[in-house]
């Protein structure tokens, strides 16, 4: 059999969803002819989908050597590099692709992502901005979201700028041509139809935040309808679907169509979630889909005037440093977390076992801003002999990434030998074992840890959070307040350093089991209370709407 024939068989198998079978055929083809181009490329793609990025990169690299001018191969390679967290290499490739075709919006988008991973926020924003200029429609909205999201991680950005940039996006979204009139009966006490609009009804950390609103809702008083932007469905999607009274997809609908559908469904309160992330849609509430609209689970202003409330926990909104256009409504329990029952048992702090003091951060390196590095460096300087462990899946596998970070610590006079990078452990359990090697967790800023903070606390490790004035920079502070540890919230940079040093000195005597219990027993793990709080706000806002309509 020829390589061509084997390749054709492989492709036929792939068409029947038999990816493993296809892989065998492509491998066989390459045994016959190691330079068989179609097999190199298609096997690379198959391996990519199997998340064997290393092999995919080998194959695409070989293919590209054969056909240096083939942009499709280069794009595949760049994606594989990015997913393998080789962002420096990916950046180089995307730049080459852009040099070749400066109108490639997607390449600008990907270049922006690669730059974000290298914490080069400003350059990333420039690249996303270019991507916006080059695209239209739903793709353009996606570019906007990437661009606006990129402001959240940068410690040099003023909240007012976040608002101005978001306002530019809002300005170009279509608005209703005439004032929208709602037919919803303005009865303050009646059963309400709540609509939830999100792209995250799937296995995603955001879904954990609002799952309880479905599971524990007050069925007598609230009906739940979903407006899902999830392109693919998984088991989590199916769970949500089973809990909802109505389910509609908004994929492929424009804002006006989706809003018309929501109005026709008689939704009283539309809740849009985590607006600054994923494929979540601001264009739908901008078309005024429901009489009451709430912006929930977001971390910065939408800069639009279509929301009746931006929900925030009191601690998160306490410093009032944001420039919201929405009115902030304080709700005690916006966020909840499910107990991590599969987690390993809490460990003995390393310093109690005689090891040197180890600080640690398992935050996404995108969150390691210049300010975070400066603060962490001050902590290391204040605690001689200590080290800092960093881990986020395989984010630090690329030497260039590691060197980049080490240079930034060196600039603050920190010996690179004190920074320890860890790799691997995608599964939750192995991921959480990181905390067996950490005495005290240091939080990032301005975008603090969320899930990461919860995991550290669940593992009984104190998380010291830097001072912040925005909702975004006080996420950890909110969590610490709710588990009864506001003492870990720094009020100034000096205080942060002193707190971290103090926690390090006390690490030997940590009662990690007690902290885990405190977290387990806190309102943070009380999903029913969260559901009640949200419903109280829905009802209160609805009453206001009714009073306004009747006046």
């Amino acid at each position: 059999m020829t390589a061509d024939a084997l390749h054709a068989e492989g492709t036929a198998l792939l068409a029947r969803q038999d990816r493993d079978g296809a892989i065998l055929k492509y491998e066989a083809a390459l045994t016959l002819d190691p330079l068989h181009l179609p097999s190199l490329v298609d096997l690379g793609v198959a391996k990519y989908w199997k998340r064997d990025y290393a092999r995919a990169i080998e194959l695409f690299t070989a293919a590209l050597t054969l056909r240096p001018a083939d942009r499709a191969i280069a794009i595949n390679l760049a994606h594989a590099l990015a997913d393998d967290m080789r962002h420096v290499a990916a950046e180089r490739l995307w730049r080459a692709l852009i040099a070749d075709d400066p109108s490639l919006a997607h390449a600008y988008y990907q270049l922006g992502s690669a730059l974000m991973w290298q914490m080069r926020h400003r350059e990333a924003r420039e690249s996303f901005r270019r991507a916006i200029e080059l695209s239209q429609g739903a793709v353009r909205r996606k570019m906007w979201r990437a661009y606006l999201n990129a402001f959240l991680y940068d410690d040099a950005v003023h909240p007012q700028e976040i608002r101005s940039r978001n306002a530019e996006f809002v300005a170009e979204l279509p608005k209703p041509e005439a004032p929208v009139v709602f037919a919803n009966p303005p009865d303050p006490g009646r059963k309400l139809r709540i609509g939830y609009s999100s792209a995250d009804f799937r296995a995603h950390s955001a879904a954990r935040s609002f799952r309880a609103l479905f599971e524990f809702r007050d069925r007598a008083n609230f009906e739940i309808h979903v407006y899902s932007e999830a392109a693919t469905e998984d088991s989590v999607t199916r769970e949500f679907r089973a809990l909802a009274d109505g389910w509609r997809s908004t994929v492929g609908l424009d804002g006006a169509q989706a809003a018309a559908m929501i109005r026709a469904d008689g939704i009283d309160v539309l809740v849009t979630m985590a607006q600054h992330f994923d494929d979540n849609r601001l264009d739908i509430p901008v078309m005024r889909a429901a009489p009451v609209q709430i912006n929930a689970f977001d971390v910065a202003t939408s800069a639009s005037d279509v929301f009746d409330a931006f929900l925030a926990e009191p601690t998160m909104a306490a410093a009032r440093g944001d420039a919201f256009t929405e009115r902030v409504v304080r709700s005690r329990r916006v966020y909840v977390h499910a107990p991590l029952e599969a987690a390993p048992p809490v460990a003995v702090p390393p310093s109690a076992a005689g090891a040197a003091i180890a600080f640690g951060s398992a935050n996404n390196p995108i969150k390691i801003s210049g300010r975070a590095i400066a603060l962490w460096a001050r902590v290391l300087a204040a605690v001689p002999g200590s080290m800092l462990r960093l881990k986020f899946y395989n984010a630090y596998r690329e030497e260039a990434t590691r060197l980049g970070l080490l240079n930034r610590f060196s600039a603050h006079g920190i010996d690179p030998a004190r920074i320890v990078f860890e790799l691997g452990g995608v599964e939750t359990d192995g991921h959480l074992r990181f905390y067996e090697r950490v005495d005290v967790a240091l939080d990032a800023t301005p975008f603090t840890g969320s899930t990461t903070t919860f995991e550290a606390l669940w593992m009984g490790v104190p998380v010291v959070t830097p001072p912040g004035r925005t909702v975004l920079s006080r996420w950890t502070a909110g969590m610490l307040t709710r588990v009864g540890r506001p003492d870990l919230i720094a009020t100034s940079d000096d205080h942060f350093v002193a707190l971290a040093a103090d926690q390090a000195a006390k690490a030997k005597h940590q009662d990690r089991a007690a902290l885990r219990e405190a977290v387990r027993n806190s309102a943070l793990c009380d999903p029913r209370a969260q559901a009640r709080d949200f419903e109280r706000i829905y009802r209160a806002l609805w009453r206001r709407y009714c009073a306004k309509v009747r006046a």
Partner: protein
Amino acid sequence: MNAADALRDGLAAYQRGAKAAALALFAQAAGAEPGNADAAYLHGFVLSELGRDGEALVPLERAVALVPGNAAYRGALALCLKGLGRIAAARAEFERALALAPNDIGLAFNYANTLDGDAAIAAYTRVLALDPAHGGARLNRANALAALGRWREAFDDYARLPGDPRALIGLAGAALHLDRAQVAHDAAQSALGFGSDPSAWFNLGVALGMLGLTDDAIAAFGKAGDDPKVAPAKATALNRAHRYDAALKALDGAGPGFDTSMALGNAQAGRGFYTAATDAFAQAAALRPDDTDAAMNHANALLYRGEADQANALLARLPVSSSTLYALSYADAITAEALLEAHRDWAKRFAPVVAPAIRNTRPRIGYVSADFCAHSCAHVLRATLPHHDRAKFEIHAFSNVAAEDAVTAELKAHFDHWHAIAGLDDEAAADLIRRARIDLLIDLSGHTGGHRLGVFARKPAPRQATWLGYPATTGLSQIDFRLVDRVSDPAPSMTETPVFVDGGFLAYAPPADAPDPSRNGAGPVFGSFNNLAKLSPATIALWSKLLRAMPDAKLILKARSFEESATRDAILAKFGDVASRVELHGWLGAHLDLYRKIDVALDPLPYNGTITTFEALWMGVPVVTLPGRTHAARVGASILSHADFGGWIAKDEAAFVDIAMRLAKTPPSREDVRARFAASPLTDGKRIARAIEKLTAGL
């Protein structure tokens, strides 16, 4: 030696400075030639100069007798008489001398030095007319003016003697009396440049205290010697910084006197001991029956220990001031018309002025307040200021804060520019505001302590408004707008143009660290955490009625004033037959926690609670109010109606009792109360920020 030679040699010796030799020679000449007037004069003159006025008198009188028309002889005789303590005779002699030589500067000055009060001032003024550069006359005139309390004129004289440490000390003292602490501070510092002086240190201490630099002030007082005025001044500085216990300590062992009693009263009032404060102010008032500050403080202390009737009787006798106006809002019987009239009368002291024409492309909004600190106003500011659109508006603070604290630091973040006006007099502050070119100037004090309405009266900004902190009109025609709402002021009674803010004229920033809303213990329990001054006789009568209607109910009252047992006893007595069911709490640390023991909060009248009501609602506790006709009596209704709790507003006393009992029997869910409040416009300060920004363009 003949007389002529002796006189010549004597003059030569005198000019060499050999006064003893000169005296001998002049004596010789006078003895040799008794009819020589010059000899007699010179003999007497030198004796007088040497302090031997008793011996000088005879030869000088002889000289004058010999040549009555010689002004110099008479001048010397007058000085001698003055030296002998015969002031009236000296004055008469000077007058005769001046009649002969009206333009003799030395004579005129020496004459002035024998006078007191207005006559002295007129005499020095004459000297200065002859010689405007006469430093001695200017200094002495300044001292004479200061002795009469004419501080502004004294200030101007002292200010023209910059190189004289005595004048600098005087300048500092005058500046302190004119509330120009910064000038006083600088002058005292300059005086100390010439050498240490207890008076300079004293003035410096007072100035530092007024500028809020309390620790520096205490250090300065340490060098001010043991003058009896030091201890009360030190206590005053400590009072200003709310360090009342330290103030009391500073007064320990201080001699009795007006200043001591005032400082003591302020310290006791500051720590909530209003009975002790009442005693101290009464003593001060007895020492200086005409002092309005003492009488005013006395009345206020009475108000805060729950003695409204006594306080009002005292106030009625006082001249109208901001303090007497403010006290009117607490009075049960006050009508909206009388309130307006009283404020209008007060404002007549200011002449109408022309406003500057200012229109910035990025309009500037200036807030004037003494309460940018731990004060109830801060709750409202915290909810509002962060919402200003700083891209379009420039926000200025004109701070009259006496002692800055952590809240000041927090609030500073919400301003583009921060100007301190504490220590500047009204004209200087107005000038600062004019130079800052403010489009809209907002008063946050009304007639409450530390207000700067005198600045507003000068109209340093084209548009002026009053908003917060005071429950009535300012009375000033120079203030254009007052922010209120349709519930607080349905029939506006004010000199300003009312601006009705949609959603209510107030806003509240709920504290992030408030405890969860929950109930602890058994009911029914009513409560009020309003200060005691608000518990008017009508309030106590109504609440007693409620307790009688519900025999198993308790009432918890919490106020600073209840720290003191004498005050507690006095208040319980006013509750009469229901006193056993009234529980009094002093100033506990865990303020909000106490709401867990309360089922229903009661709003006092006619001066309703504001922040107290907000706090109750945030803790999920319903509040019942009985509105009256004045703004102060309608704040409760404003809050409740805008927070979606209109059903808790009573139309009369019977309804008040009914609503309170119904809520006590079936309390609403605390979580629901908080959520409704959280979703209400009252926790949305942005509305107010927008309303204020709109005012920059007028109505």
